[in-house]
């Protein structure tokens, strides 16, 4: 410790910069802990709030006692019947036209505990508790009832349940929901079971489906199963973790380079000191041990600061992720594994790098080491001799370029750090452009102007209603439901074969043909089909809410996503009718008249909704990217500061023979610019590869075509920012070094 203190006294600013940069790099590695922190917080919430293990959406249960039916099945621990409706709202803060409302027994805390973070739970008709961001306590929400009358709901509280976390949703009494949705009984069952394994939940949902069907109650969507105490959104968090992991790797690489260059510098600058000790009789091995110990102490000091910083970084970002996606404020969590790995990385890494550097230092011929100030005279290596013969550029330019070759590990470190910063920035920018392009492409084939949906979860648009609309050429009925194929959750969309609401041009095969013989034909989105090995002519078994149905694939459609198109009439049959549709499309943005209780959105609403989601994602990854860029920036600053500090005598000599500060700055600039340029070029390449790799991993994980759009337009801005940043850092360090008088600087060299 005494040795470390002496070293600190020798160059406190430089040691502090190194320790802080290293600490921040270790702190940035804390992003690796985000998934673990988020996951443990989610699971804690699931247990605490007694979240439902199985949620079933059904047709209106009417007077059937579905709770009793469900409770009669072995393994069911608790059941609550609810009414879920989607209501059209007036102008609320979210700007969304649809608001899901859940009517439930608000005093029941056996399944899905509901709580208010402000205000209170609803206790009377027309009172509502809303998720954070929908409205404030005391405000009134105007909604449209099933008989097309407007009704005012008074917001009495803000809060919700874990299951609905992150959704823009409202909770009200069961009577109010029934009145709003025109439901007589219930249409949603929240169930807790004793066995949470995926197989048991699947078996349980099949039993429930059959028992309910016996009573004439059909499932309207695939059951939502939450196995093993997980949270439904954990899959999304896992995907987000892939990107976080990539940025963590970038942060780790920066940390590695920084650790290497800092440790190398600490050891190399002691070459002459080590040589003096060798000349006095010190043996190489204890000398190397001493140098190694110094590096380890510095790394340990960095770990002491960096690890708490990492805990802070991971918790702050995990909190952002969970608040943005779930509206959940998680508790404080620590990933011991990531902490331990970071600490071992810092200390073992420092020891390993120090060993190599110490070996080099103690192997330099004694006479050379004693003569040369930094222990590494220019001209010893062949690369230095080659570059010394070069006569291109001015004298200051040559000195700069030769120095970059001379201090090659420093140069490599600067290049690596710039590369990391540029790559991180471009990955973030490419994420934005890709998400934008993907969102646009999701809408591209569609040509509907308005989309009117039902209030409940079933096929609530009856054939009579549709018959009254078919005269209107703008109107088409459709069904949107969720299915499952080959383990993937898919969108199953029922359309008329001659639909005008989507571009019918296909990549392979043909669009849905009309006619009885083709009732079971299906068209699958190309990207999904390619990823699950489906082609034209194959039969696919799709699991729907009402059971498994086989369709024959006749075409592959360019729509992104996991989508299967089938005939709307066939799908209505497969879902058990009696209704015929749950969506009415129009070709313009005017909804048809006479759709009681249904809610219309236009394309603009959907775009706005997507924008909000994208902003949240970009906010989070922007924050993580900033951490990485800050680490890389500090690392570059640290490397440059050490570089300029080491060469202060050289710069002082230049000033002594007439060099002005601008000329000294020129040496630094000329040395830095090529390195920054190489870093920018490498960063662009790495950013492209990294962004593409992330998107491909998402595509594999989701079996969809996302399509990677590289943020080429951001390159000039990123390059200019990085180069300007380097120059500013270089200028500041030169200015600092130049403040000392030439004589004093040169005297300290003697």
């Amino acid at each position, binding site marked *: 410790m005494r040795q470390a203190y002496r070293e600190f006294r020798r160059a406190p600013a430089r040691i502090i910069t190194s320790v802080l940069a290293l600490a921040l790099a270790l702190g940035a590695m804390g992003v690796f802990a985000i998934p673990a922190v988020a996951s443990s917080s989610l699971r804690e919430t699931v247990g605490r709030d007694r979240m439902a293990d199985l949620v079933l959406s059904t047709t209106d249960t009417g007077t059937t006692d579905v709770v009793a039916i469900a409770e009669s099945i072995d393994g069911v621990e608790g059941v609550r019947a609810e009414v879920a409706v989607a209501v059209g709202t007036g102008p609320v803060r979210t700007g969304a036209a649809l608001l899901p409302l859940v009517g439930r027994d608000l005093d029941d805390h056996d399944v899905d505990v509901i709580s208010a973070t402000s205000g209170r739970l609803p206790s009377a008709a027309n009172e509502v508790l809303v998720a954070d961001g929908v409205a404030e306590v005391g405000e009134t929400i105007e909604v449209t009832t099933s008989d097309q009358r407007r009704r005012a709901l008074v917001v009495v509280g803000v809060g919700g349940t874990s299951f609905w976390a992150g959704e823009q949703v409202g909770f009200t009494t069961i009577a109010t929901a029934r009145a709003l949705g025109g439901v007589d009984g219930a249409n949603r069952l929240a169930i807790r079971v004793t066995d949470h394994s995926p197989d048991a939940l699947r078996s349980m949902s099949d039993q429930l489906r059959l028992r309910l069907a016996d009573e004439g109650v059909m499932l309207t969507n695939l059951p939502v199963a939450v196995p093993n105490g997980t949270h439904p959104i954990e899959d999304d968090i896992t995907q987000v973790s892939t990107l976080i992991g990539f940025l963590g790797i970038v942060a780790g690489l920066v940390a590695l380079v920084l650790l290497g260059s800092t440790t190398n510098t600490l050891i190399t600058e002691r070459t002459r000191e080590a040589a003096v000790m060798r000349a006095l009789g010190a043996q190489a091995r204890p000398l190397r041990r001493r140098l190694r110990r110094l590096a380890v102490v510095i790394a340990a000091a960095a770990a002491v600061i960096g690890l708490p910083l990492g805990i802070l970084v991971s918790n702050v970002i995990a909190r952002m992720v969970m608040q943005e996606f779930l509206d959940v404020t998680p508790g404080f969590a620590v990933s011991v594994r990531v902490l331990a790995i970071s600490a071992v990385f810092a200390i073992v890494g420092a020891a390993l790098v120090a060993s190599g550097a110490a070996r080099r230092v103690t192997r330099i011929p004694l006479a050379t080491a004693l003569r040369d100030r930094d222990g590494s005279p220019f001209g010893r290596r062949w690369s230095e001799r080659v570059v010394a013969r070069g006569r291109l550029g001015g*004298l200051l330019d040559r000195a700069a370029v030769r120095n970059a070759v001379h201090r090659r590990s420093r140069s490599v470190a600067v290049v690596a750090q710039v590369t990391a910063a540029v790559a991180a920035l471009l990955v973030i920018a490419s994420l934005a452009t890709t998400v934008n392009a993907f969102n646009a492409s999701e809408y591209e084939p569609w040509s509907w102007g308005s989309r009117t949906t039902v209030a409940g979860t079933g096929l609530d648009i009856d054939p009579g209603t549709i018959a009254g609309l078919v005269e209107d050429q703008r109107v088409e009925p459709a069904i949107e439901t969720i299915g499952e194929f080959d383990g993937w959750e898919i969108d199953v969309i029922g359309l008329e074969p001659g639909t005008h609401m989507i571009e019918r041009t296909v990549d392979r095969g043909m669009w849905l043909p009309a006619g009885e013989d083709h009732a079971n034909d299906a068209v699958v989105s190309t990207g999904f089909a390619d990823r699950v090995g489906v082609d034209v002519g194959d039969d696919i078994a799709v699991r729907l809410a009402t059971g498994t149905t086989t369709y024959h694939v006749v075409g592959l459609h360019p729509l992104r996503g996991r989508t299967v198109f089938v005939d709307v009439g066939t799908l209505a049959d497969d879902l058990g009718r009696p209704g015929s549709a749950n969506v009415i499309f129009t070709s313009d943005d005017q909804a048809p008249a006479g759709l009681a209780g249904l809610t219309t959105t236009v394309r603009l609403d959907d775009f706005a909704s997507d924008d909000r989601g994208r902003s949240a994602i970009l906010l989070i990854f922007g924050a993580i990217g900033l951490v990485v860029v800050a680490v890389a920036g500090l690392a570059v600053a640290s490397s440059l500061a050490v570089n300029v500090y080491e060469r202060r005598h050289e710069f002082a000599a230049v*000033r002594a023979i007439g060099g002005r500060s601008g000329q000294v700055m020129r040496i630094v600039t000329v040395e830095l610019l090529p390195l920054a340029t190489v870093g920018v070029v490498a960063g662009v390449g790495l950013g492209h590869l990294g962004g593409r790799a992330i998107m491909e991993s998402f595509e594999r994980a989701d079996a969809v075509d996302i399509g990677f759009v590289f943020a080429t337009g951001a390159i000039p801005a990123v390059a200019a920012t990085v180069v300007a940043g380097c120059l500013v850092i270089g200028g500041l360090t030169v200015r600092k070094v130049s403040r000392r008088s030439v004589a004093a600087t040169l005297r300290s060299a003697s």
Partner: protein
Amino acid sequence: MELITAPPPPVSAPAVAPTPLIGATDLTRRWGKGVTAQLGIDRIDLAIERAELVAIVGPSGSGKSTLGAILAGIDRPTAGSVVVDGTRIDRLTDDGLARWRGRNVGIVFQDFHLLPTLDARENVELALKLADGSMSRRERRRRSLDALDAVGLAAKAKRLPTQLSGGEQQRVAVARAVVNQPTLVVADEPTGSLDQESGAVVFDLLAALATSGTTVVIITHDRHLAVRADRVVSMLDGRVVPTEAV
């Protein structure tokens, strides 16, 4: 090239001939403040004539290097004034002082302070480049080779500093100091790192400069060399003292 050439008439020099080249008045240099303050030189008055070869001598810590650094313009006095060739150099800005140094002063250091990544010729050429950016590359190259020739190192012009001996490096430093034909050369312990023979060669080079009209200030603790100067200034504890007092 003839190493020893008369300097061009200084633009700002007064017309009256007897005016000394250097006039230092009440020169004080101290570092730090309060009780921890360290005194380098203390209220020194000094005048040095044109073409004079002056040796400043004194024991370690006497302030001779500090005085030399202030006269060369690489340090600033805490108090007092320095006028060199009519220019009050203690009032110049940092960049102004650098420009002044490049055009008017040649400095030779004990540790040479050559740029390690430039070869001998490039090190000499750098002084020309910094002093006069408008000079053609060809002209710079010719003059630096001439300067190296004058110190006997033309054959080693392409050697890097690490490929030269200590004496050779110091001769390169002398060539760099004189290549701009300065009015003043300040050499701080120029023979301190050299053997006797190399030291004598370097001293002879400096002495020849004075003969040709350049003012030369040599800081040394070597009394055998000092006695060869036109005048010896002795220092002790930051003050100029009679020579016999040292």
